[in-house]
């Protein structure tokens, strides 16, 4: 995997509109397909998995979601597609699948192997637990700022 590809301005889109969680996942999926991270079938797998194991998370200041599917051969390279929404959409909660929450930032994961999955998830969660950082992401003015903030903090070693 090329480290540089994990995050890229090509798979970040800020302040877009989405009608629903499914619509948002499709938009993120489209970016990943266009940039050769995944095959289109992966998007459907993510939508299906979201119905069984939803990925909405309530943080201190906002709701986020990390939609993903079980890694298989429809993932071509590792990437995290990100969107910040103009208006939140409803995602069901990971903790309580019957509870719907408002989500304003979505991180869609396209990761080839399970082990890698875990390392990246751990780092992502360390970002989510950092209230200040989440606010900075929410306030960052453009894709480049957003990308820099994210990549700087995903690369911290030893952080859990």
């Amino acid at each position, binding site marked *: 995997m090329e480290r540089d590809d994990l995050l890229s301005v090509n798979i970040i889109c800020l302040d877009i509109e989405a009608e629903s969680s499914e619509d948002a996942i499709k938009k993120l999926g489209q970016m990943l397909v266009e940039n050769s991270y995944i095959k289109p079938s992966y998007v459907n797998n993510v939508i299906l998995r979201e119905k069984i194991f939803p990925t909405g998370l309530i943080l201190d200041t906002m709701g986020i979601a990390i939609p993903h599917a079980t890694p298989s051969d429809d993932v071509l390279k590792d990437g995290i597609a990100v969107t910040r929404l103009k208006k939140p959409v409803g995602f069901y909660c990971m903790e309580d699948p019957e509870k719907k929450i408002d989500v304003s930032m979505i991180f869609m994961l396209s990761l080839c192997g399970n082990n890698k999955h*875990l390392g990246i998830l751990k780092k992502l969660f360390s970002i*989510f*637990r950092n209230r200040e950082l989440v606010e900075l992401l929410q306030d960052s003015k453009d894709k480049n700022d957003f990308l820099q903030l994210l990549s700087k903090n995903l690369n911290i070693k030893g952080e*859990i």
Partner: protein
Amino acid sequence: MKKIIVACGGAVATSTVAADAIRELCAREGIAAEVVQTRIIEIENSLDGVDLVVTTMKITPDFDVPYVNGMPFLTGINKEATEKKILSYIKD
């Protein structure tokens, strides 16, 4: 030696985050503990000798072993209270 099961709904992803945090907690507190990851549907068959069950998804426990919701290890919200609760079950 205490035995703790950490389970999540999907695969092993979120439980890994919680399990790591619990291992650290035990190390910090000098508690010898074995932390085992599993899926929620497999909890029932893994309860032998278990002192505590932690999950990253809300469940209604139908077992006699103490149970703690481990979501705070993922989101950071109520983490300290959760740590205290866990310690109250595994500290002698």
